[in-house]
């Protein structure tokens, strides 16, 4: 009889628990990270009743989470990739907008600048044309500088993002460590009964950590998890947390890198390739810095070509032109980890060989090695780093102040600062060198067939460059310049006062040719500057500045497009992983409704069994009362 009651009671208790679990599921249907729970019922231990054994009711063995570690891991890993792309995408799209703005963009400004030279060539003495050219040059410089400024401000956004992410990672890691401890205690107390809510919370934290940076986890037998970040740096080991810190880049104090407290200044940034943090680091190394470098390369090319032409012409005052644009040159920075104070200086010697890459020069065991900073590929170079024999590669000359210590490194940035510093170096329109420095003429009275070609400037610094020089022929085979006699060969270049000119044909004795400074209406230099629009300057003289601008637009656009495509694809992958987890762990209200009915009916049935037991017992007692009363 007692069995009957105890069986019913166990069933009533079990079904009440089941109804509670179902209600809890319904209550948490929209709680993020909540895994649906289910009661695990088992038959009670049977009891021997003579020759028979009868069951002893039902017991709730455990309340289980609907959970798959595999699905959860897949979701975390796809979420890490998606967060990385989301964060990278926000930067590539911003760069796309900065570079791609057609109105007021660099391409338009560049076209206007060249056209202004062309206009000046049509009217070289016109002050309004000079003023217009200067304004166009200034707006071009402004446009390049502003673009570089906007790109640089992205780098400070990235720094703030890194700081915030690292703080959030540390706080999540701390919470995971303390949950680990609670779970270990809970598991020990509850035996087989896992503290489901704590597990859910910890899984949520690992999922949110995955959004910040890709992590991997391992589970200890007591239920604690270890969390590793990057290429296996421990972040949480059971109850202990290794805090992440931000440190200044060894070469560039204005760029933050991620490190661990135990690693000191040894940055682990390069191993963090996913999550929001991975996206921020990738945005800097793959999008912002390369774009700044490319922009710098074209700014350096523009300045170099314009300045060399401008300085070989004459301005409106008859003086040799001075540089039109000023631009910061390449820089070499010693690593903060270097063990001695050797410094490196770098200068540009061939604009055509200049690239938009950064390089790392390292010195190990008596030998220099030069590598591409972004790909790590070795770069061929010549020289030994002394002033007499500088290290030469990529259009650069690198000179070391001494012999570095073994293991020292230097970052070489050929164009990183060029765009931001690009400005117009002259302020007076009359300083624009529209005139060729020199012009030549043949005396009208010449009787021979000799003709003189255009004079070219070889040494702009020659003090007598602009002096008027007469080339007087004393016979068809000899001429004198300032009293000195020279032999004449038709077509052979005549070098004098830093210029070069060729006379061809057969001059007669008494014929005179003159080389003198360009007149105010001379427009040959302006023509040459306008013609630079299609002049190959970069990439070994194959790419014009305009060509480089268009290539920049296409490359920035392609990168943004590629990231957009990857992001769309990853969103689909992630949504699939989410569905997978939800289909395993999510709460389906229809399921719960059915369960509710099921447990309710079972409860009612058990209650009925209890009532029947009671009736049976009463019947028995009544019959006994009837016999003895």
């Amino acid at each position: 009889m007692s069995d009957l009651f105890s069986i019913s009671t166990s069933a009533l208790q079990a079904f009440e628990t089941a109804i509670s679990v179902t209600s809890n599921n319904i209550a948490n249907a929209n709680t993020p990270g909540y895994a649906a729970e289910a009661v695990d019922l088992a038959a009670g231990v049977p009891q021997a009743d003579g020759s028979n054994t009868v069951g002893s009711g039902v017991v709730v063995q455990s309340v289980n989470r609907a959970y798959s570690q595999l699905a959860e891991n897949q979701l975390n890993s796809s979420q890490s990739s998606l967060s990385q792309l989301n964060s990278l995408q926000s930067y590539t799209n911003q760069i796309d907008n900065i570079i791609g703005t057609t109105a007021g963009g660099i391409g338009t400004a560049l076209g206007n600048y060249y056209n202004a030279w062309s206009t000046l060539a049509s009217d070289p003495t016109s002050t309004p044309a000079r003023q217009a050219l200067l304004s166009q040059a200034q707006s071009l410089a402004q446009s390049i500088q502003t673009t570089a400024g906007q790109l640089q401000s992205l780098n400070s956004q990235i720094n703030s993002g890194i700081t915030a992410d690292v703080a959030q990672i540390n706080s999540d890691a701390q919470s995971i460590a303390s949950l680990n401890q609670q779970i270990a205690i809970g598991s020990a107390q509850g035996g087989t009964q896992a503290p489901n809510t704590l597990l859910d919370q910890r899984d949520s934290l690992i999922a949110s950590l995955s959004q910040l940076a890709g992590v991997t986890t391992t589970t200890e037998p007591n239920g604690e998890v270890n969390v590793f970040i990057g290429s296996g740096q421990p972040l949480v080991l059971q109850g202990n947390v290794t805090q992440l810190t931000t440190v200044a880049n060894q070469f560039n104090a204005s760029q933050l890198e991620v490190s661990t407290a135990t690693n000191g200044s040894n940055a682990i940034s390069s191993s963090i390739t996913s999550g929001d943090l991975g996206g921020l680091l990738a945005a800097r190394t793959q999008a912002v810095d390369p774009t700044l470098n490319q922009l710098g390369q074209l700014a350096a090319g523009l300045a170099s070509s314009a300045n060399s032409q401008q300085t070989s012409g004459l301005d409106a005052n008859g003086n040799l032109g001075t540089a039109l644009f000023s631009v910061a040159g390449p820089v070499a920075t010693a690593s903060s980890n270097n063990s001695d104070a050797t410094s490196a200086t770098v200068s540009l010697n061939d604009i055509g060989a200049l690239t938009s890459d950064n390089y790392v020069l390292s010195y190990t065991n008596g030998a220099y090695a030069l590598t591409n900073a972004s790909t790590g590929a070795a770069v061929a170079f010549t020289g030994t780093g002394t002033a007499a024999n500088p290290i030469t590669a990529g259009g650069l000359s690198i000179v070391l102040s001494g012999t570095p210590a073994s293991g020292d490194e230097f970052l070489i940035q050929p164009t990183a600062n060029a765009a931001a510093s690009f400005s117009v170096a002259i302020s007076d329109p009359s300083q624009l060198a529209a005139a060729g420095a020199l012009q030549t003429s043949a005396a009208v009275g010449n009787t021979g067939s000799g003709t003189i070609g255009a004079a070219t400037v070889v040494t702009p610094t020659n003090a007598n460059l602009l002096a008027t020089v007469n080339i007087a022929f004393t016979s068809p085979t000899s001429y004198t310049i300032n009293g000195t006699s020279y032999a004449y060969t038709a077509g052979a270049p005549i070098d004098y006062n830093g210029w070069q000119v060729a006379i061809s044909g057969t001059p007669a004795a008494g014929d005179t040719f003159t080389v003198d400074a360009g007149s105010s209406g001379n427009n040959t230099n302006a023509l040459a500057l306008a013609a630079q629009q299609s002049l190959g300057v970069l990439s070994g003289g194959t790419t014009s500045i305009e060509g480089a601008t268009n290539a920049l637009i296409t490359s920035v656009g392609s990168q943004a497009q590629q990231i957009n495509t990857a992001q769309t694809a990853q969103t689909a992958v992630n949504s699939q992983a989410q569905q997978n987890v939800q289909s395993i762990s999510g709460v389906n209200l229809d399921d719960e409704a059915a369960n509710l009915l099921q447990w309710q009916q079972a409860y009612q049935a058990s209650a009925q069994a209890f009532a029947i037991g009671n009736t049976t017992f009463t019947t028995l007692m009544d019959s006994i009362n009837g016999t003895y009363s």
Partner: protein
Amino acid sequence: MRVTQSLEQTQFLTAINNLESALSETQNQVSTGLAFTTPAEDPIAAGNVSNLNEVLAQSQQYTSNANSAQTSLETENTALTQVQTQLQSLYSLALQANAGTVSSENLSAISAQATQIQNTLLGLANTQDGSGQYIFSGYATTTQPFTLNATGVSYAGDQGQAQVQIAAGQKVATGDNGDTVFNAIKTGNGTFTASPATGNTGTGVVGATTVANPADYSGGSYAIDFGANSSYQVEDAGGNVVASGTYASGQTISFAGLQVTLSGQPAAGDSFNVAPSTNQSIFTTVQNLITALNAGTGTAAQQTQLGNSIAAALGNIEQAITQTSTVQAQVGGRLNTVTTALSLATSQQTQLQTSISSLQSLNYASAVTTLDSQNTQLSAAMEAYTQTQGLSLFKYIG
């Protein structure tokens, strides 16, 4: 697959967001009329459009350059036409003076007209364009090229010839300098000159001179020396006799591939020098003519001198006319080049605008169709959501 309500919500929201973002992009395209607004939407086309825009702007600049070249060349053309008119008048005046029976009053009148022409030519040589630049001073456009002073007319310009770019790889000269147009004019017949030696006492006057056989003329100087009885011999610079004979008035003397016709009667001991042409300014030619006209014709010797001076002037003026015609022909050629470049540029610009438009402009038909279908998709998704949201087992319990 097991679907949960919260997943359904999330998926619906994601889908709605995606649809709305696509719809907004299409809407943006339709309202701007651009197929793409940032390079990421079509990187290749964006690069090409930027490139084509630059080519278009460059072409428009070339058009502006060509228009400016056209103006300069037309100004020069007009000036050259007037220079030629003046030179023709001068030539007629010289012919009038050469008639032999011209009175000294008439010579003075002719001289006065020649002076007038000289001044007009000087004015033309100093022609300025609309912005006050001298068109015949080479690169020295702000310097007045020709100035009349005590020793004649001096040239202060240079030999520069400004060019402008009128098309990719095509430059055109926008003018000619004063040396080319006015100063570098060959004397005589353009190859050689024949002139009487100073101190000739006869009445020999140089007439027509021609190069009969250019191959035989090596550019040397010769002297035609007259001896007794009208005999003459021609010597080269080294004193070698290259021809000799007996002279009759109007006879053509041939030597070394050259022919010189003399008239009148040279006296024994008279000599005529044959020398290669040199360059002489138009102004020197006019000045020499005026000086000769003013020298008087009182004596036979003076008349002979006047005849020789006029003969020299006629040759030089003819050379000047030839020279200015040649320059004018070149100017005409350049004007044609500019006109051709302008019309090519116009069609190139149309072509470029078409290309830019085809890359950049939105295909409205397809965009509106897309917009429509995205709209339908969005409203269908919303409709589906509201319908499935009604489904719950709980509605049927209890």
